[in-house]
């Protein structure tokens, strides 16, 4: 039986902060989203206080004070580097990995004998903890869906020491009997609502459903999940890796914006970032959307939500072209008299750069532009983000609060650890 592993970093952002602040090891810690809008990572102590993922920060302020919770703004440079360290260890440990998110990767364990899997998981888990300082949970099962469940089991039971092999039918059934069906990988909000309405709250209920009924109620994706729960692999190693179909950058602002100039700078920055991401992945976009919205939590202020979507004749990854278009779109949706809390830029209809159809009417020298973009990316990569930027982006600090950000210990020389000697 071939096996697949899932390595998931425990409370990843919190764990990254703790590596450099060992004093926070058993204290409640939370990390906030960009501009400190809501809570995006919680230590176990914070989870135990009943604070939910995604809670707006201001709603938790009382608890923060009362329980002396350590609060951090998100430090993505640090998390990105720590993530790469973990992924590099995984890459060396197994024949193939599939990075699923910043803190998760599937492990291809096809060639490993069954008896070595449990010690392998324990060793790897201990090694990552020792070398990088990040605690991880490694679940190993015949399918990806079960591996995810096995890794969650590690988090519930510290006695497993970060490694859990789950494959015997009786074990799987016992675990599924206690596992909320809503937490099963692939069960979305709608499927869950259907299941709950049928009185099915745990994964075992879905598992015990006749195959035909699953097929009838949830179609192919549901059947796939059902089969995976039964140990029949349906989600291969490339399936999830398919090209991304959308890139979106959006932020909540520390201070609400009321003028076009302020929003211009924000939209210009987001567009540059989107274009940079496209280039990094060798993709071009045919469609670009700009959106702005007011603070929906402020019942006293007038509300406005606007989005403008436009098409390019030739799919593009060019910062200048995209920024020009984004600025135009913004002018069409911006209305004075509103306080905008959030804005974003999204591109869709993505395609590989190689496959882009050229147009006779195209008036941009794409070869020259491409080398300009390459130069900008190279400089920003070595000298730090936004070293080269559009004049319209303005000064960079105006729309970030970043008051509780830890240092970029691993990516900036002037921010490395201080050791009192």
């Amino acid at each position: 039986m071939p096996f697949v592993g899932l390595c998931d970093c425990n409370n990843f952002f919190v764990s990254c902060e703790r590596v450099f602040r060992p004093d926070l090891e058993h204290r409640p810690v939370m990390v906030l989203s960009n501009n400190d809008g809501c809570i995006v990572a919680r230590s176990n102590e914070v989870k135990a206080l009943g604070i939910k993922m995604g809670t707006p920060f201001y709603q938790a302020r009382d608890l923060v004070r009362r329980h002396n919770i350590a609060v951090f703004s998100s430090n993505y440079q640090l998390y990105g580097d720590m993530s790469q360290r973990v992924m590099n260890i995984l890459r060396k440990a197994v024949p193939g990995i599939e990075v699923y998110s910043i803190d998760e990767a599937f492990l291809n364990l096809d060639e490993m004998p069954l008896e070595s899997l449990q010690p392998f998981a324990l060793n790897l888990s201990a090694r990552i903890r020792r070398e990088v300082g990040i605690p991880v949970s490694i679940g190993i099962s015949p399918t990806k869906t079960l591996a995810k469940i096995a890794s969650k089991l590690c988090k519930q039971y510290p006695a497993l020491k970060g490694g859990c092999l789950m494959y015997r039918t009786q074990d799987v059934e016992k675990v599924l009997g206690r596992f909320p069906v809503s937490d099963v990988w692939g069960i979305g909000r709608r499927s869950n609502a259907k299941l709950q309405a049928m009185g099915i709250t745990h994964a075992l209920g879905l598992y015990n459903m006749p195959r035909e009924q699953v097929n009838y109620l949830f179609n192919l994706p549901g059947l796939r999940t059902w089969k995976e729960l039964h140990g029949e692999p349906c989600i291969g190693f490339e399936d999830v890796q398919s090209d991304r179909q959308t890139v979106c950058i959006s932020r909540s602002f520390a201070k609400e914006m009321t003028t076009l100039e302020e929003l211009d700078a924000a939209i210009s920055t987001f567009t540059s970032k989107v274009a940079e991401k496209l280039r990094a992945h060798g993709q071009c976009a045919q469609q670009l959307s700009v959106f702005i919205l007011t603070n929906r939590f402020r019942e006293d202020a007038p509300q406005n939500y606007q989005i403008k979507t436009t098409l390019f004749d030739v799919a593009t990854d060019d910062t200048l072209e995209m920024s020009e278009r984004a600025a135009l779109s913004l002018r069409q949706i911006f209305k004075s008299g509103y306080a905008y809390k959030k804005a974003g830029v999204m591109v869709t209809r993505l395609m590989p750069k190689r496959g882009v159809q050229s147009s006779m009417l195209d008036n941009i020298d794409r070869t020259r532009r491409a080398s300009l973009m390459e130069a900008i990316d190279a400089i920003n990569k070595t000298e730090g983000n936004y070293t080269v930027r559009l004049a319209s982006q303005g000064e960079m600090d105006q729309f970030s609060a970043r008051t509780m950000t830890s240092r970029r210990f691993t990516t900036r020389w002037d921010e490395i650890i201080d050791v009192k000697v």
Partner: protein
Amino acid sequence: MVHAGFPSPAEDFMDVALDLNKELVRNPSSTFFARVKGDSMIDDGVNDGDMLIIDKAAEPVDGCLAVCFVDGEFTLKRYLNKGDYAILMPANKAYKPIRVDADNQFAIWGVVKYLVKKV
């Protein structure tokens, strides 16, 4: 037309240029950099402003230069393992050795592999 020119006589002997990063950072996943603040280790040649290359995964052997975490702060000292307790030895007569035992919040965070100083 092909511009050929003379082939370099060194071509068959090309070596990869020395890379300090490869030499000093044996395990990139577990290597961290830190800056020295203070003078408690000057007799060991560790000065204020020097850079430390720390391996978080290295086994702390007796007498090694260790980045320790003691009661809420990072510090750099010689680590002497005494079984039930440990002594953190400074290298400056103006400082006293620190004794740590189960009552302290104590952990060895990493072992210093190299010291980089500007001359």
